Each structure stands twice: as structure tokens, then as C-alpha cells.
């Protein structure tokens, strides 16, 4: 028993890491089509966006960067498709300097879905300043975009109150800027799509109503795809993520079997104060 425990706690970690890759790739190649558990945040995001009347205008703020792109790969397109289907007018705004490439992607997708620049959506350029920039959109929407040419849609966007929603796709900071400087003061609903490690911090704002929807990472995107009845890349990746979780849980158990048995034998290294 002890030798087994010792063996279990001495596996070369690179084998375990390779195992994770194999498990994930296996699940990607052979999807099982398991169901996707839906969270309250995703349901509320879908319902808030679904209840927008046709023709209303929303801000689609993106601060995706290559690092977080995999987390936003499903939710962005899923929301965009839903907006186009419901004929909502969109103002794309990059709120992070690296997001311009991703906004360009969304613009191409919107065009493919039949949206026209200037009447159905506008593509606003990046502005530096982070929180200061978001705040200045609230106090003087057009003053930071003075050089933009006139178009029917752009002319109808007078100030921040022209919009019925702020949709924020980001790594985990800009939705707080949006809540504090746009959502709360101007009573504009904020729907936030974030990296999955941020949903726990933001759940409380969903509860207080400062957020009208919350999507967490790839899983959040998959949930939105299911809710809007258009399964795509997100749902296809969910089996792989599940298998990855399973692998990690397995490692947790393995590592702790070794630890607890060696602790019983009195060989484990202890800390100073362990509470």
C-alpha cells in the first residue's frame, strides 16, 4: 500500500501534463455531445438582450487580447448573431489597445450576416485612457470621436443615452468601468462577458442588478449558444473542457493520496502555523 502511494506521488509531472493534452485533444476530435449546464448569469444575459426591441442601439465594447481570445471565442460571435437576428443597431468600441484586430473580426462577421456599415452598425476606433476613456464616453460621447464621418446611424447616436445596453466583452476590468461610469449613472443595462476566472468576483453585481447578465469564458459562450439555439464552436469545446476538469480533479486526488499516506507515516513536510 505504501509503495503504491509512493509511486502515485512520484509520477513525472510532464507525463501528467502530456496526459492532459491527450485527453483534451481526444475530446475535441471525438465530441460526445454532452449537455451544457446553464448558469443564471447566462440566462439573464440572453433574456436581457432578447428583450431589446428591434432597432434599438447597443454598445458592443471589446477588450479581447490574444491571451483572452480563446475565452471570448464563443460568446462574442454568439451575441453578435443574436443582435443581428433581432435587428439591433451596434456601435463597436475597442476598449483595449489589442482589441482592434478582434473588432475587425466582428465587423467582418456582421457584414457577412448582411449588416451594413453606417446604417446597421458603426465601427468606432480605439482610444487610449482605459477607465478615463470609458468615463468620457458617458459625459461627452461624441467629443472623443470628432473626426468620424457622418452616417445615418452615427448621426442618430447623440449621446450615451441613445443606447439601450452596454455589452462588454473583456478580461475582467472594463465592465467595472462600464458599471460605475455608464450603467449606474445613466441607468443603462450592462451585460458582461468575462474570462471564467472573473465570474466569481462579478456574481455579486449580477445579484445587485448592476449587471444584467454575466457570461464566463468559453463555457459562458457555449451556454449562450445553447440559449439562442445556435450551437457552434463553444458547445463543441465543452466536452474537452469537461475532460480537462476531470483530469485535474484526478490529479488532485492522486497527489493528496500520496500526501495523506506519507503524512500518516510522518514524512510529510509541515508548515509553521497551519491554521
Amino acid at each position: 500500500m505504501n509503495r503504491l502511494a509512493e509511486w502515485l506521488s512520484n509520477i513525472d509531472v510532464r507525463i501528467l501534463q502530456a496526459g492532459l493534452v491527450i485527453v483534451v485533444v481526444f475530446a475535441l476530435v471525438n465530441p460526445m455531445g454532452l449537455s451544457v449546464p446553464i448558469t443564471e448569469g447566462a440566462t439573464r444575459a440572453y433574456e436581457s438582450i432578447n428583450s431589446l426591441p428591434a432597432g434599438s442601439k447597443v454598445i458592443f465594447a471589446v477588450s479581447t487580447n490574444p491571451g483572452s481570445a480563446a475565452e471570448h471565442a464563443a460568446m462574442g460571435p454568439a451575441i453578435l448573431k443574436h443582435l443581428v437576428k433581432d435587428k439591433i443597431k451596434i456601435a463597436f468600441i475597442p476598449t483595449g489597445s489589442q482589441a482592434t484586430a478582434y473588432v475587425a473580426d466582428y465587423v467582418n462577421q456582421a457584414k457577412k450576416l448582411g449588416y451594413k456599415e453606417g446604417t446597421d452598425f458603426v465601427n468606432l476606433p480605439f482610444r487610449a485612457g482605459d477607465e478615463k476613456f470609458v468615463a468620457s464616453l458617458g459625459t461627452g460621447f461624441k467629443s472623443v470621436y470628432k473626426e468620424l464621418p457622418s452616417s445615418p446611424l452615427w448621426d442618430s447616436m447623440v449621446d450615451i443615452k441613445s443606447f439601450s445596453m452596454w455589452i462588454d466583452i473583456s478580461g475582467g476590468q472594463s465592465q467595472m468601468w462600464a458599471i460605475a461610469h455608464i450603467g449606474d449613472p445613466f441607468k443603462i443595462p450592462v451585460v458582461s462577458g468575462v474570462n471564467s476566472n472573473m465570474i466569481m468576483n462579478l456574481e455579486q453585481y449580477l445579484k445587485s442588478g448592476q449587471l444584467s447578465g454575466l457570461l464566463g469564458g468559453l463555457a459562458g459562450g457555449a451556454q449562450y449558444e445553447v440559449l439562442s439555439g445556435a450551437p457552434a464552436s463553444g458547445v463543441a469545446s465543452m466536452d474537452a473542457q469537461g475532460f480537462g476538469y476531470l483530469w485535474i480533479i484526478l490529479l488532485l486526488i492522486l497527489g493528496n493520496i500520496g500526501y495523506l499516506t506519507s503524512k500518516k507515516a510522518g514524512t510529510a513536510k509541515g508548515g509553521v502555523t497551519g491554521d
Partner: protein
Amino acid sequence: MIKGTVSTFGALVLFIGAWLIFASGTKRGKRFSIRRVAGIQAVDEAVERCTEMGRPVHFATGTGALDSSMIASFAIMSYIATKCAQMDTGLIVSAGLPEIYQISEGVVRQAYVEAGKMGSFRAENVRYLTSAVAAYEIAVDGLLHRENPGANLMFGPFNAEAMMIAERGNRLGLVQIAGTNSFLSLARFVATCDYVLIGDELYSAAAYLFRDKEPDRVNQVLAQDVLKLGAFLVILIGTILTSSGNGIVAKLLAK
């Protein structure tokens, strides 16, 4: 007043007011005290253990920006450096950003001077590694193996490197104490460290350690405590009133 900002303004007035009252108290020579944060004891024990084993102490700052948590961490770094100087125990500091490195060097040097041990200060033991996460990890990993420290203390704005460094220190059986205000790193630290200073505790600990030298830090912590206790009371009273069908507190706060 713009509608909806009255309560925020009230909070601000309460905060600044409390701060000013404490500050004027300090000016009149009054010394306020705060509770000793439990983590400080753990730090003491770690340094003592290193001294017994004759191994150095390792202090990592992480690769994050020079923010408020790093400023509090400098106070803790200074305390550890003083302790190490007094006990003739080596201290190695791994700094991430160039500016954090510069300040760290000054902080450690000052601590050695004040302890009267300038002779045993080694400038090369405060190291600028790099601010790129993966490269910082590699550098700390090599350092932990080469220098064989007895304790791994991690205070500051940690990013993704928290995971790897804490894991490596854990495997080497080091005493590990951490403090940061990043929720994500906190989760990783709690799972791998012996003691963790959670978020705001970092500031309280820093204020406690420097209560004599920089009493304005204590005043700040006290003023913050007024807001904390205020929040506690408002929630307690508010929920009791709401339970009895009186929603006045939530209504007032929406003003």
C-alpha cells in the same frame, strides 16, 4: 448634487472626516493602535526558522505593477530585512519591475543601516530578474535551487507566476507565506502556502509594523475601519428593517 450621488458623497465625507479626526489626534500626540495581524507572527517564525537552519530568506515581489499592494509590501520587506539583519540571516529579494527593484534595494539597504549591520548588506542579493512572467518564473526557480533558502515569502502584485513559484517552493519544502490583493493569486496561495495575508490585511499589517514611524498609515487604516464598521452596521440594521417591511435604508442609499 447630481441625483444618485448623495450617498456616495456621504461615504466620502465620512471617510475623510474620520481620517482628519484621527490625523488631528496624532498631531496632538495621541497614538492609536490597531490589532496585530496574525500573519506577522508567521513571518517572525519563518525568519527564526531560517536562522536556526542557517539558510537565507527569499522574498519575491512578483511581476505586477508598482501598485498600492506593492507599496504595502515594501513596508513588510523592510520589517523582514531588519529582522534578517539583526539575526545575521541572509535575505534575497527577487524583483520583477525595474522600479520595484530600485525601491527594494533602497528599502533593504536602509533596514540594514538602521539595524547597524551595514557591513553585512549585500547589494547583489537584491536582484532585478525581469518582468516577463515566464522568464521571472525560470529565474526564481533557478534561484530557489541554487541558493537553497529556508523560507519563501511572496508579497506584492502577483500575476500568473504565483502558481509556479508557490508550487516550486512547496515541493522544496520551504516555509511559505504570501500576501497579495489579487483574488486569483490568493486562491493559488491559500492552496500552497502556510500562511496568507488576504487583501486588505496586507495594508493593516504594513500599518501595524510602521505604527511608530509612519502614524498616518495607522490613521488611514482606522479611517477605513470606520467605513467597514459603517458598512457592517448599515447592512445589519438595513436587513433587520427590511425584514420588518421597512425598506428605508436601501431607499436612502439610492439617493
